């Protein structure tokens, strides 16, 4: 099976299962017809801010 053969490759590329499945999901979404396609894509907006802390201080806000 193709997916089984691909498994180790995405893991080797430093992806987690979540990233991998998100890419797959996005591919599927892109296969939709209009107007469902733009609707589905507009629903999936990603926005948040992360700041990493070490020893009680924020490293750099991103």
């Amino acid at each position, binding site marked *: 099976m193709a997916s089984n053969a691909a498994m180790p490759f995405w*893991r080797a590329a430093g992806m987690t*299962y979540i*990233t991998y499945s*998100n890419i797959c*999901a996005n591919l599927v979404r892109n296969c939709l017809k209009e107007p469902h396609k733009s609707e589905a894509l507009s629903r*999936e907006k990603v*926005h*948040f801010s992360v700041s*990493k802390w070490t020893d009680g201080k924020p490293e750099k806000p991103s």
Partner: protein
Amino acid sequence: MAMAALRREGRRCFSPLNSPNPIAAVRSSLIPASEYDFSLTFSLLLTVFLVVSLSQRRVFVFVSACEQSPLGVRSISTQVVRNRMKSVKNIQKITKAMKMVAASKLRAIQTKTENSRGLWQPFTALLGDTPSVDVKKNVIVTISSDKGLCGGINSTSVKTSKNIHKLASGPDKETKYVIMGEKGKAQLIRDSKKDIELIITELQKNPLNYTQVSALADDILKNVEFDALRLVFNKFQSVVSFIPTMATILSPEVIEKESEVGGKIGDLDAYEIEGGETKSEILQNLAEFQFSCVLFNAVLENACSEQGARMSAMDSSSRNAGDMLDRLTLTYNSLEAVSRAENRITERDEAKIKGVCWDLEPVKQLSPPN
């Protein structure tokens, strides 16, 4: 100004005018000029006319009592109460509006939350929930809201996280925080600064969706080392009840170790594995996917609880504002009654001192002629 001219003349024959004058001079700083001019001139003329032509003491007293009301000095104390009433009324309007907004947001998010519960249930059926698992590296994911005015949900989740932190910490153990939301951050920075690993905010700028939360879960997985993740959030029960909840997610290695020991996870061997993958590969994928699903549900549950809590908080605060308004209205009414009575007395006393009306009747009879 008519009044100023009359005062400068200072003629005795106009002595009835002198009685309202000192009061009016004090008042002048308290009222806007236009209102002052009109009402004072008008009432002066009226008083002069009535006193001179009719020379009836009853009418005089009655008119001067009337003259007081548009000037509004007697209500120096009632003015304060009136301002307060106005501000309370405005606050009540705001809280009512916030309640309506929260109610409509809640309706949208509640269905989403209830649907998302189907995401973690299969995982719990497969891997079980193991809150008591004892591992070295614990990471507590505290989920809170970005905005305030939503009752105690943020402090409950912070308190629960702190308790879990206390339980999980030991001599050779490491416990860290991953904080989501401004409010949890503000509370945890105060005393657990050194244990913070990651802070995530502005999650709810757009409506919550799985893509967003899974990207977030990905970030947490990449940046934080853990043996067990403890997600702390408020599970939505109803508009008025939220249960502080902890969901545990184990790292693949720990799952494997636990499955050898037995118990719920031990049943995992009963499943047949398709394809060429090893068990550890499957477990790793599963653990990652489980984390993103549980996190999605947790974020939604917490957002739902936030709206519910805000709704009930705003409901009770608008009710409190209503109660306060009732009390203030009572105070206002009694104050006004008192000051009205007082004004009549002082007016009469002043007139007596000035020698204008020397044979006034007692106060109790000082009422308008019927």
